[in-house]
């Protein structure tokens, strides 16, 4: 083992179905690269004999007594070898389903993967599940080895069958293997050298293929992200420490901290031991650093610094493509501790949008729970705004893990598709604004009219009946003597919001403006009824915050299938044909109200019943208390007529 100076270390995970020969392959790799320490081969020989087996290469790795006796790998293990000037770390991952958490722990550290498939058995359940998880974990450098070719008489036909079966599955999960190598790990064919039994294969042996893989690069070219790990006091200095997850940070950079929206400039990158004169002015992704700032802004562990102009999104809701490891199923409404880099907070499972069967890629929408070792797409919700990146934009910051009683119980990658950045909606753009107080109060207006203004916010799917009901309610209230006005989705988009489209940001802005206008109307003493899908809870809650005492959320409830059947504007038809993207309920989420003040079921009740229910609710809420008896008289008369 002539060790020369090597330049880079490659971490390879070896995965595949149980008994397809992962540990044997590793034993063979070590033997063929002359990486076994003196005595290890003999030790293995002796241990094999003692159990009456033929040579068991896997004994080299399966070091736990329990593993040797059962001949299965329980936990992931790591072992080093050198080949042609390069250092390798092999990560052996167990094939048994019940040890999936160990397989994931191993695979999450790897640069590349070898997927082992038994030539006799072909692709099995764990082959597929492991491959799917490799894809989820972002491993793209994958080679397949078709092992135990000796058992099928080195038959080229068998190789071709298994190879094509493997490739077609991998293709469906976006993995394109660089090579599919026929091998016999036990006999050493096509491992270090080609051997003689596989003459018909014209590719390279395993070790040469590994030589072609590259170590994962740190995401230098991505937007800078610096999650705060801790804050140290060093004498007078306050040093903010953490690891740069992506991009480059320099002294003099203007940083924006999320979710606090605080900004400050980097004054120094601290170093120890003192470098005497040469100051560090730049840090790159992967470095564990400490910086000082020009301002004493509030910063703590979990806050995340970015360049001022390219911050992460802020949201309370996001989607995660998740694998679940706990024996207790994940259920809608459950709350877990979540970690995202150094940030930690409780998170609620809002919905399980899709449950995926990783062995045949079939799926079920709107599932009730996710069991152990299963995969799903879920929507998560936090109480406060948090900083989020999509995994596809930044693989270091676009992933989360969940904890159950202190143990990691699941994890996954973030998607912000369909969600609006809530950051730009928070502050006035100009600072030269001073509010002027009105001389007339809400109460004085209400006293003169006998009722107060209010916002009655109708939310529901397209076709649920919002506009129809809003217009009828408006008419009924007017005839009863109330001043009232409807703000309707399509109408507002012809005027006030003519500049807005249907992107998540535009949808949020649409609702923000309607929230503001309806609040002005309510202040002016009008009963304002709004009819907007308003699918996001965060947007509706922001509208409520403008005038919380007089905001009433009314859930207009009908099932998706009923709405699609009605389809008054023909929109569902278009969306199903793919002519409308991001259509609420189909390709874009609808977050039903959690605690609406009123729920109207338009599927089981006719229009008149619904109108009556809403009018009754509105009247009982806008009338001043002293007029209570009058309302009842008024109603009785109306009924008598």
């Amino acid at each position, binding site marked *: *083992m*002539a*060790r*020369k*100076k*090597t*330049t*880079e*270390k490659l971490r390879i995970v070896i995965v595949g179905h149980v008994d397809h020969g992962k540990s044997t392959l590793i034993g063979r790799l070590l033997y063929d690269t002359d990486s*076994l*320490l*003196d*005595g290890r081969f003999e030790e293995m020989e002796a*241990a094999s004999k003692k159990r009456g087996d033929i040579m068991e290469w896997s004994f080299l*790795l399966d*070091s*736990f*007594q*329990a593993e040797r006796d059962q001949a299965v790998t*329980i*936990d*992931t*293990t*790591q*072992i*080093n070898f050198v080949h042609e000037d390069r*250092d390798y*770390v092999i990560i052996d991952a167990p094939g048994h389903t019940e040890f999936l*958490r*160990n397989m*994931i*722990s191993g695979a*999450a550290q790897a640069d590349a993967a070898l997927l082992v498939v038994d030539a006799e058995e072909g692709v099995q359940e764990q082959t597929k599940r492991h491959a799917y998880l490799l894809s989820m974990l972002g491993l793209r450098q994958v080679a397949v080895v078709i092992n135990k070719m000796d058992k099928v008489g080195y038959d080229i036909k068998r190789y071709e069958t298994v190879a094509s079966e493997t490739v077609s599955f991998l293709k469906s999960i976006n993995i394109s293997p660089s090579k599919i190598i026929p091998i016999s790990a036990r006999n050493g064919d096509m491992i270090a050298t080609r051997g003689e039994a596989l003459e018909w294969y014209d590719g390279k042996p395993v070790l040469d293929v590994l030589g072609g893989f590259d170590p994962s690069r740190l995401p230098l070219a991505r937007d800078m992200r610096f999650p705060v*790990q*801790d804050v*140290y006091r*060093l004498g007078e200095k306050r*040093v903010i*420490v*953490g*690891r740069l997850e992506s991009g480059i940070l320099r002294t003099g950079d203007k940083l924006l901290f999320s979710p606090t929206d605080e900004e400050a400039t980097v004054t120094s990158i*601290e170093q*120890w*031991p003192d470098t005497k004169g040469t100051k560090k002015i730049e840090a790159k992704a*992967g*470095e*564990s650093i*400490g910086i000082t700032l020009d301002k004493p802004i509030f910063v703590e*562990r979990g806050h995340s610094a970015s360049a001022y102009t390219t911050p992460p999104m802020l949201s309370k809701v996001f989607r995660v493509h998740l694998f679940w*490891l706990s024996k207790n199923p994940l259920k809608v409404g459950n709350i877990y501790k979540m*970690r995202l880099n150094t940030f930690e907070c409780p998170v609620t499972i809002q919905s399980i949008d899709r449950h995926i069967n990783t062995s045949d890629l079939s799926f079920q929408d709107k599932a009730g729970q996710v069991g152990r070792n299963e995969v799903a797409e879920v929507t998560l919700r936090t109480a406060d705004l948090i900083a989020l990146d999509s995994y596809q934009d930044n693989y270091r910051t676009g*992933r989360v*893990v969940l904890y159950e009683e*202190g*143990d*990691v*119980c699941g*994890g996954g990658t973030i998607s912000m598709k369909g969600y609006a950045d809530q950051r730009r909606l928070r502050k006035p753009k100009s600072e030269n604004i001073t509010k002027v107080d009105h001389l007339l109060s809400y109460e004085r207006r209400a006293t003169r009219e006998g009722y107060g203004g209010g916002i009655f916010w109708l939310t529901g799917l397209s076709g649920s009946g919002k506009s129809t009901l809003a217009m009828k309610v408006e008419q009924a209230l007017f005839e009863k003597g109330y001043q009232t006005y409807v703000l309707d989705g399509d109408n507002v988009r012809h005027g006030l919001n003519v500049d807005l489209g249907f992107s998540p940001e535009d949808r949020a802005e649409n609702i923000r403006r309607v929230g503001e206008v309806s609040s002005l109307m309510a202040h002016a003493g009008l009963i304002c009824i709004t009819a907007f899908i308003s699918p996001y809870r965060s947007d509706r809650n922001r509208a409520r915050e403008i005038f919380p005492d007089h905001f009433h959320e009314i859930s207009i409830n009908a099932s998706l299938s009923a709405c699609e059947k009605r389809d008054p504007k023909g929109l569902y038809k278009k969306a199903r044909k793919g002519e409308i993207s991001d259509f609420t309920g189909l390709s874009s989420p609808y977050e039903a109200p959690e605690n609406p003040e009123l729920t109207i079921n338009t599927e089981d009740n006719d229009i008149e019943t619904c109108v009556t229910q809403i009018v009754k609710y509105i009247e009982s809420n806008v009338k001043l208390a002293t007029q209570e008896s009058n309302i009842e008289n008024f109603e009785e008369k109306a009924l008598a007529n």
Partner: protein
Amino acid sequence: MTDRYLDELEERSIYILREAYSQIKPLGMLWSIGKDSNTLLWLARKAFYGKVPFPVIQLDTQMELPEVYTFRDQLVKDWELDLKIELCPPEEEMDKTLPPATRAATRKTEGLKNILLKDAYKGLILGIRRDEQSMRAKERVFSPRSLDGGWDFKNQPAEIWDQYKTQSPDGCHIRIHPLLAWTEIDVWRYTHREKIPVVPLYFSRDGQRYRSLGEKNITFPIESNASTIEEIIKELETTKTSERSGRTMDCESEDSFEKLRSGGYM
């Protein structure tokens, strides 16, 4: 190996040390005074800008070689370490059925249990590495220990994307292993680059040197002429002998080290 690779190892270890310091209290570090734990101390000084912010614990069997004690006292002074010495119970109190060297090693396990009882550490930082021994190859970076200090190696928690297990029930603790991904040769290259002091016993005298330091009754020197760090690195580039071959307790039976570790050994 280029400096860049050593940089990567250093960055990762510093991240782990800072994570432990931020998440687990009270925290201590075990110091065997060997090359690995000296490297660990140096990394801690880098992570915390000069001062190691937690106590450094030596499990003392009073059987170390005299050079080790001299070195210890000097470094405690130079680096202003908060050293806590825990005297291990005598060998007579150990399980008589164990093979002799394993019995001697068990003294440290018992010493460790005593200090855990006394000072209730929730986190202990150790300098073990995956390449030392195949049992250690299966370790997690943050590895929980039960009430009796035992390691439930068949039921380890998941560890992904540098998200660790940092909570443990009353009476239990977490072992933190910042050097897990390092190899023996990495430690020497880093020691050389950073000029970290080491006990002179590692260097050859009269054709012999210690490759791994342990108690004098159960550790033996190897044949070697390597008298500088450069020469040690050169020797390791071609060796095929296990680092711990001079440690008799590892070799007494096929699973002696596994049993030691399940019982709480380092």
